């Protein structure tokens, strides 16, 4: 078999050195009843590369890719263009096929890119420090909540009604498992500021999002102030990292912890993963952070070098006292993020953000012109919600038939709410004027 270098002759020779008769000898500790006579039943045998490629290509062909036509789905993952050189970097053997940099002397490549990543994330979010990435935005959000409780020694977490419902669910799950209280404010298109009202002396943190799940952008400085007044923390969430090139970043609003999804920069849609969670906080909270951190140091020759550091926070040292059980980061996606960000630079990011916003404005203009359509998001970056005169599910199905993937119905995200007529749609630099025209034309036909 092509991935197994041992020949039968090798196996025989090696068994002889070991003094074993066959591989069965090594499995002597397996309980009798669990020993299989042969291979696992009910599964096919090995296949050549051509056969595997054909099978998987067939499955892939059953999916409609985001680039194959007008496409407006957002809601926490965004269709952006990724430069070919970014994918080339992450396919580089030395990055792709190495492990966590436990031996820094032969992992400076990974470590320096992580250090650069941390610096970039800190700058992007306008926070003091960032870690070397989390699984994704939703788990980063959950970790931020429990971290805030650790820091404040309080047990109440308040979630805004504009928080991505999946982030809310993941956060609630982890908090409740740890006996923490979660208060989820009413779902609202433009209700982030309600956090300021809700915060009280028991509150560990308030968690607000901008742009939120409906695309609404909000300056949450007042929420931060209100939280700080009660000695609570303000956790600022984003799901669209490109937005931070244009809208007020967490650090400018006074966030204590900023968490978000980094997928938009360098990471393909990939049906939802792997993505890259961004996690940043203020300097004074750094020792309570979850996840891996890379720090600068020197080697025995006095040369600058990088190592994983502050690992006394982590599970492999602290075990049941760790800040989190997380044992990996999203290294390769973080590399894609940092490589793409390095191509962009400040100017590229800002231009990219502007192009996104402008595409969304064009889309809103076009949809607004369709009779019966009402844009409900008051201020947005590249995503907004609109109300249709019909059931959104039906509208999306008809759009689909017209070749337009029109967005996400709010009822899929909020099944319990009465939002059957709301569609959330996003535009990016990949959205063409033709795409927008096709959307508006199809929608006009439908409603």
């Amino acid at each position, binding site marked *: 078999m092509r991935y197994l270098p041992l020949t039968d002759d090798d196996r025989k020779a090696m068994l002889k050195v070991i003094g074993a008769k066959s591989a069965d000898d090594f499995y002597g500790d397996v309980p009798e009843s669990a020993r299989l006579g042969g291979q696992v039943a009910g599964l096919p045998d090995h296949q050549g590369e051509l056969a595997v490629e054909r099978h998987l290509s067939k*499955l892939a062909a059953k999916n409609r890719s985001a680039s194959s036509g007008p496409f407006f789905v957002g809601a926490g993952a965004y269709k952006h263009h990724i430069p070919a050189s970014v994918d080339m970097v992450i396919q580089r053997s*030395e990055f792709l096929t190495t492990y966590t940099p436990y031996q820094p002397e032969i992992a400076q490549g990974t470590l320096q890119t992580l250090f650069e990543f941390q610096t970039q994330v800190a700058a992007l979010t306008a926070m003091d420090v960032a870690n070397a990435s989390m699984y*994704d935005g939703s788990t980063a959000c959950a970790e931020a909540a429990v971290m805030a409780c650790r820091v404040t020694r309080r047990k109440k977490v308040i979630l805004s009604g504009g928080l991505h419902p999946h982030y809310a669910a993941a956060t609630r799950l982890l908090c409740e498992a740890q006996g923490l209280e979660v208060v989820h404010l009413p779902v609202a298109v433009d209700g982030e500021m309600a956090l300021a009202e809700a915060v009280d002396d028991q509150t560990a943190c308030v968690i607000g999002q901008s742009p939120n799940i409906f695309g609404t952008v909000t300056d949450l400085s007042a929420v931060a102030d209100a939280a700080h007044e009660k000695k609570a923390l303000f956790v600022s969430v984003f799901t669209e990292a490109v937005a931070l090139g244009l809208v007020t970043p967490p650090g400018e609003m006074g966030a204590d912890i900023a968490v978000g999804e980094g997928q938009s920069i360098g990471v393909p849609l990939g049906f939802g993963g792997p993505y890259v969670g961004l996690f940043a906080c203020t300097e004074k909270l750094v020792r309570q952070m979850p996840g891996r951190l890379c720090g600068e140091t020197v080697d025995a020759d006095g040369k600058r*070098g990088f190592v994983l550091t502050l690992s006394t926070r982590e599970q492999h040292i602290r075990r049941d006292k760790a800040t989190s059980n997380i044992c990996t980061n999203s290294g390769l996606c973080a590399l894609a993020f940092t490589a793409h960000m390095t191509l962009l630079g400040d100017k590229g990011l800002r231009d990219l953000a502007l192009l996104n916003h402008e595409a969304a404005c064009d889309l809103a203009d076009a949809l607004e012109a369709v009779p019966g359509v009402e844009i409900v998001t008051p201020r947005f970056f590249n995503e907004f919600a609109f109300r249709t005169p019909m059931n959104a599910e039906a509208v999306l199905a008809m759009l689909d038939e017209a070749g337009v993937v029109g967005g996400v119905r709010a009822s899929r995200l909020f099944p319990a709410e009465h939002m059957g007529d709301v569609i959330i749609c996003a535009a990016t630099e990949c959205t063409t004027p033709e795409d927008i025209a096709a959307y508006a034309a199809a929608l006009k036909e439908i409603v």
Partner: protein
Amino acid sequence: QAEGLIFEIGTSETTGVDLPAPKNRTGRLGGVARKVPTGLPGLSEPEMVRHYMRLSQRNYAIDLGFFPLGSCTMKHNPRLNEKMARLPGFGDIHPMQPQATVQGALELIDELATWLKTLTNMPFVAMSPKAGAHGELAGMLAIRQALIARGEGETRKRVLVPASAHGTNPATAVQCGFEVDEIKANARGRVDMDMLRAKLERTDDVAGIMLTNPNTCGLFETDIKEIADLIHAAGGYFYCDGANFNAIVGRVRPGDLGVDAMHINLHKTFSTPHGGGGPGSGPTVLSQALAPYAPVPFVVKNEDGVYSLVEDMDGEASESFGRMVAFHGQMGMFVRALAYILSHGADGLKQVAEDAVLNANYIAAKLKHVMTPAFEGYCMHEALFSDAFTADGIETLDIAKALIDEGYHPMTMYFPLVVHGAMLIEPTETESKATLDQFCASLESIARRAAQGDETLKGAPYLAPARRLDETRAARKPVLKWTAPEGETVAAE
């Protein structure tokens, strides 16, 4: 030699992308505009490519040489898998697209799930966990939910965890609100059954056990069925850490051992690339007892052959413990893992396990005369040594660093904690005999020097891209990001 930081070589006006000129329309932002520039440096594409290529040369990787990092299972990453993951039908689909437009993706998840269930003989698998530790969380949350359903959520809080467990095990238990009760290992490196029985004298507070099998000493837990029976008799559940599934895949089905939940690290057993620290992927198989509590979303195949996602906690998922992540798990890793699985088939996976174990025992046999085996008898997929053979003043760290100079990645050091100065060597099945012979010769020579107290080992590595790094300094006053030198506010030219 050293490659500067991007902040030192780029400028914030440089960009390596050519975008159409924006019109600077910000009308719908409502004035929620960023004031402080990011100051992020950009590089032209040639500079960017060279930066990362040069940095890459400061890394060691499985593609370049032997990487016997015990417990981490660094095996060959087939490039077919990378190619498949990049098919537009997998790489360029959105998690919230209408389900009718992603039937192939759902079918792939279902197909991989079927393999995982069949290989483990378990009835259900939660696919969404993002990594091994996240899979542990899934399993322990399922146990928590099952206890709650039984009305014992508040009373059964004690989870037994062997001392040799991965650090994630106790950490996960705590994350789920459990308390950890440690069990020691016996002289054979397995769970001390007497201690276990003693710990189970009181049963009403027992939530379960978290056990790694094959364990972190690289040994199969001989008494695993009895352990399962004992914990079940005590009213608890059996969480098995499946990090070492590579040693038994295709030969032993954990479901036949009484396991209730087990995560599978796709990168370890099924060769998804680890990318310098992730992403991982940790599907978690569940027993019939725990299946009802599995997290949403999951894929079901309807009678008409259409696949659908169960996303809401009603109907089939009414007992679910909830949602762990934003979307459907690590799809990119699913594609790679399935490509690997289909390439091997049931026959090949059995061979994977056998060759992994054969390679480890071969190393153990070749080195046992010069190093100190931690335990007697055959090992599974990794060979464990203690530092007993070294002279005073030479420690495991020195041996590891000396291996770097010989052109190898070191073994895992100081883990498991139950063995002094542990050296855990995992060759995996994708190494040739020639490679093992060369490695053993190198390590034997280092071991002899260590036994003789050769002080030059303390200075190793000498030939690596960096000399030994000062980790203490890094932790004492952490420098976690680049800061512009005095007088510069943004990135320098």
